[in-house]
Structures are given as structure tokens and as C-alpha cells.
């Protein structure tokens, strides 16, 4: 739950973020107007299927998109707009005030340096402290992420660690400069269930200790339910619905959210036919006008296929981008 003591406003505010990948023969609209704000100590999960724009949004916040990506909108981090920062400034912020963990720690960590060297280098780069201090901090970080025999592990190369250990090491690296925002791009997707729950619990605990805000991107409803304060359901580059974890899981409003939850297999569904969403996600190079979900939506009416879909937000902040949301809610 959001911490009540936070009065200085959001640490991260994203306004009207759009990302287009324009090349000679294609124009892909990957992110089409994302808005949210996040307070310290809060976790927002962006839940979506492949191609929904969730990872692209995250990379835009981290300034990691390639040069041909056209990014518009504002990304306010602690009151500064990330998108207007010069590269030199951006480098200070990246890995400092905002840092990121990835799905594949093996690809994200440098294979030719030990874990200790990588963490210490980050600390020296950002804070200019001595190597000795940095190594001491690195040891403390490995202990904080509960890597057993941390002192020995500092001297390990990434390939000498198991998948779960590597993910912990990457979290330690991301936390090295006490970021105010941690971006997590499917960090538990490649892990076994018994390890996944360990990482989710670790992130929850670290957040309580350190108070950072987390943007957690996943396609897994179960992981979202375990870690989020709020969930944003993303479809074709837009948030279709946002609300508290309880609101999304218990009273979903948008037909896509409902369909996604109904088609997620869980215990007690044996012998029943699964409810499915017909068709497949839209081609981002040729988005339909109006609601991008309309072609797959069984409640779609003419109004869904024309113009921008108004956003309906109730007094608790539960938002849905759907023409028929008011009819759909039982009175």
C-alpha cells in the first residue's frame, strides 16, 4: 500500500509518453500516450502481453531506446525531465537515481568482470568514492540481497552463479547507488517458481527497507498480484485500465482485463472450457482507429471504432479506457 508519509509528491511522473519506431518502410506506434505517477515506496505493475509496449515504455524511462525511436511526452524524475537531459547528465542519472533490472541477468551483466568489480565500478563512477569503500559497499549489497557467503561471491563471474543468484546480483548492482526508482523488466520470468517467489519477496522487503519506487513490468498475473500496489493493464501501447491490485483482480472494468483474467488458468478450472479472447493483438504498424481492442471485443459498438476513447476515472482513481465502462459496471 502507498506509504501515507509521502508528502513531497511523486518521484516519477510520466506524461503523455509516446514512442514511434520510424524507418524507411515502417512506422510502428509502440507506445501511444502513457500517463502515470508514482510515489516513493510504491509499486506499479505494468501488465501486458508481448507487443503491448510495456518494455518499450520502461526503456524510454531509462533512456535506452535506439536513436531512430521518436519519443514524445515528459518523464519527470525527481522534478527533472529525463527526455531533455543532455547525454552526460543522463549518464549520471542512469544507474544513480533510476536503475533497471532485466529478464536475463546473464545478458545484462558483463561476463568478463566479477560481480564485485561491476558493483564497485558503478559506485566509484557515480559517487567518486575510493575503491576500498566501494568494495565494502558491494559486500554489504550482496548481503542485503541475501546471497550466501557474500564475500566469496564478490569474486565470482556471472557464469559461476545460478540463475537465482545472478538475478540477486543484478538487483544488488541496480541498488548500488540507492535509486529512488527501480525499473524491473520481467525480472522473474526466466526463473523457476520456487526461485521466482524468493525474488518477489526480496524485492518487497528491499522496498520496505529502502523506500524506492518500483515499476514492475510483467505478463504474469500471478507475479503482479504478489508485488503490486497498483496495476496498469497495457494493450497496444496504452493503459487500458489502472487501479489498485484489488480493484484490477476483483472488479476489472475493461473487457480486455476481464478477458485476460478469465483466460489465465488457475486451480479449480478443471473440466471447464477456458474463456478466451478471440484473435490476436493488433499490428502496431496499422493500429485501428478508436479502441485498439475493439476488433477482439465482444461488447464493441460503433462508438468504439471512431476517434479517441475517453478515459473514465472513478473517485478512487480506478481508470478504464472504454466507451461502455459505465454500462458494464453493475449499479
Amino acid at each position, binding site marked *: 500500500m502507498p506509504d501515507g508519509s509521502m508528502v513531497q509528491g511523486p518521484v516519477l511522473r510520466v506524461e503523455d509518453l509516446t514512442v514511434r519506431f520510424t524507418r524507411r518502410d515502417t512506422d510502428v506506434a509502440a507506445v501511444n500516450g502513457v500517463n502515470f505517477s508514482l510515489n516513493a515506496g510504491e509499486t506499479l505493475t505494468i501488465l501486458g502481453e508481448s507487443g503491448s509496449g510495456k518494455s518499450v515504455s520502461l526503456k524510454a524511462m531509462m533512456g535506452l531506446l535506439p536513436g531512430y525511436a521518436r519519443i514524445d511526452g515528459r518523464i519527470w524524475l525527481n522534478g527533472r525531465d529525463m527526455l531533455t537531459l543532455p547525454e552526460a547528465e543522463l549518464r549520471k542519472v542512469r544507474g544513480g537515481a533510476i536503475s533497471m533490472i532485466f529478464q536475463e541477468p546473464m545478458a545484462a551483466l558483463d561476463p568478463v568482470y566479477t560481480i564485485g568489480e561491476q558493483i564497485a565500478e558503478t559506485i566509484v563512477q557515480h559517487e567518486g568514492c575510493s575503491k576500498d569503500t566501494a568494495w565494502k559497499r558491494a559486500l554489504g549489497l550482496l548481503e542485503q540481497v541475501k546471497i550466501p557467503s557474500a564475500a566469496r561471491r564478490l569474486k565470482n563471474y556471472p557464469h559461476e552463479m545460478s540463475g*537465482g543468484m545472478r538475478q540477486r546480483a543484478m538487483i544488488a548492482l541496480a541498488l548500488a547507488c540507492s535509486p529512488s526508482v527501480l525499473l524491473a523488466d520481467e525480472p522473474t520470468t526466466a526463473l523457476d517458481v520456487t526461485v521466482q517467489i*524468493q525474488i*518477489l*519477496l526480496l524485492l518487497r522487503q528491499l522496498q520496505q527497507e529502502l523506500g524506492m519506487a518500483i515499476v514492475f513490468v510483467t505478463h504474469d498475473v500471478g507475479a503482479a498480484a504478489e508485488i*503490486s500496489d497498483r496495476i496498469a493493464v497495457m494493450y497496444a501501447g496504452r493503459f487500458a485500465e489502472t487501479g489498485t491490485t484489488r480493484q484490477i483482480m476483483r472488479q476489472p472494468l475493461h473487457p480486455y482485463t476481464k478477458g485476460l483474467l478469465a483466460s489465465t*488458468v488457475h486451480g479449480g478450472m478443471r473440466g471447464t472450457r477456458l474463456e478466451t479472447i478471440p484473435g490476436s493483438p493488433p499490428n502496431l504498424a496499422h493500429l485501428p482507429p478508436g479502441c485498439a481492442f475493439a476488433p477482439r471485443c465482444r461488447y464493441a459498438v460503433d462508438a468504439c471504432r471512431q476517434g479517441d476513447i475517453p478515459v473514465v476515472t472513478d473517485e478512487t482513481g480506478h481508470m478504464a479506457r472504454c466507451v461502455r465502462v459505465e454500462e458494464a459496471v453493475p449499479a
Partner: protein
Amino acid sequence: MSAALQIPLDPRDRGGPAQPLLLVENLRKHFPVRGGILNRQTATVQAVDDVSFSVRKGETLGIVGESGCGKSTTARLLMRLIEPDAGDVIFDGDAVGDRRGISVNDMRRQMQMVFQDSYTSLNPRMTMVESIAYAPRMHGTPRREAIDRAEMLLHRVGLNPRQYARRYPHELSGGQRQRVNIARALALEPRLVILDEAVAALDKSVEAQVLNLLGELKESLNLTYLFISHDLNVVEYMSDRVMVMYLGRVVEAGPVESIYRHPRHPYTRALFASKPTLDPDRRTTEMPLTGDPPNPINPPSGCRFRTRCAFAQPRCAERVPELLAPVAGDADASHVVACHVPEAQTPKHHTTEVGHA
């Protein structure tokens, strides 16, 4: 389909309904690890070690376990994509590869497989209809007939042949490609289909579509499935019986309700407890297990789970526990567990010796 008249009378059925379609006994595969300048064998990965199970006609047997537990190796051994070191595979009464049994080719005509990666399992230079018709043509079906049947199969898996028959793999979405892989597996009219993480790479909304399709096909074609997955929810949904593997061995097996409601092996219990709850008010607060699964190179002696088990005792290191039915009369005899202390809720209270051959 005329559901009422569906009497599974397959002309290929040999042993009748009581004979298991597939019987696997003491299957073993150890991979050598080589290294050093002389490329000598330095270690052994015990990928599958002494695995025995059976698949009944018309059922779905689910295999669950984490990475490295040997579930995919088991599937590949059954298909003879890799040669087993030891063990017998008996298909409807006939030993596979035995002089008096059936040949590997004949077995493959009746047993087909769908893989996780829908893209790499299709030939990128073949159209969909060519891929599906390939195996029947290799087995002697005339070209025209094989292609007609392939188009029918495309229709059967929910893809319009007019639209998709001439397309190449890169022109299809992941869900569509997996439908093609299913159609290809069905092209030889197999009796058993091995689904190795067949829905793992799909988005949830597409996964549900493919699971429904698999259910329909099983019913209308009288198929038997071996359903391998790491997703506990999907296995529960699909399977009649479930087998839980850990580091190359079977630790527990039985009817799905019994396994999911009353798991008895400490590993199975921890595995189920690790499942995200989907309920924001009842979140997991304690880690059911710590650490990762150990490396299958040089696994622990005795019970392989003992190094992560809260109930481990000295004898767990000494002897390999056998898969045994419960001693107590009230439990289901078909629910077997390989544990020296299967009812160990607390370490001090354990049942008497059960590890006896």
C-alpha cells in the same frame, strides 16, 4: 462429433483398454561432461535416472518440475531423439527398438511431439502445408493426398487453409505457428502426443485458445497426451494424472486431485506453496524453499531433495527412497511418493520405515 457413440475402437489398439499405451521402465540417461586438454570425461550430468511410469489409453499424464529436473530429456528419450543409456519403453505391449517389438520408425508413427519454440521447430523454407505434409510423404503417402490432408488439418486447428497454407513460418504469430506444429504432429494420426512446454511461450490469451484446441482434438481424435510443463496451473487444468520430477527422478505421482489437494513429498508441497496466489489479500509471506535447484552434475546422494528439505534425516543421505504407495489404508494407493518421511509435517513426528523394496 457423435459423442454418445464414441467407442474408442482403434484398429491399431492391441492390448485393449487395460493395457497402458506407454510403459516406461527404469529409463536412464547420463550425459558425460568433458573438459581439460585431453577432453576426458570429468563429470556426469544425471539428467534422467531410473524413471518408470505408465500412460493409460486416453488419459493425459502431466509432468511437472523445475528446470533441470529431466522432464524434457524424458520426452526426447521417449521419441528416441536421444538414445537412452538404459531402460525399456513399451508402446501398447511392444518393446520399442526390440527385435520382437516395434521399430523406432513405427513407434514414431504413433507417437509425435510438439516443442516449446514454435519458430525453430518449423523449417523456415517450407510453407505451412509443406511442413505438415512432409512426414506423411516420407512415410509413403502420395503428394496430392498428403497436401489435401494437410489443408484439412490446418482447418482442424483453426487456421483457414486458403489464408495460411502457402505462408512461411515468419509470416505467422506465435500462437498460429504453434497451431501449425500441432497440425504437423497430428499428420501421421498418432495415438500419443507429447506436448513439451507447448504453450509456455504463448501469451495468456493465446495460451487459453491453444489449450481449448488441445482439449477438443483429444476428444475427437481419441488422443493420449503426455503434457510436460513447468506451469503448475496449466498442468492441473490439463492432466488426469501428474508426475512430479526433481533432479532426474520421479518424487511423486498420482491422480491430479490427490496430488494437488494432498501433496505428500516435501518438494511437491514447497513447489505448490511457491505458486503466486492471485489474491492480493493472501500474499505469500514466507519462502517455501531457499536457493536454486542444485546442479544435476553430481547430485546429492540418497534423496536428491535432502539438501533443501526441512525434514531431512540421516537416512535420507544413505538410501534412495523408492516410489511407494502409502501404508495407511485411507489414502489412494495409486498416489505414490519417494520419501523416507512422506507425512513429515513436523520433523519430530514421522512415520515408521517405509523405504523397503
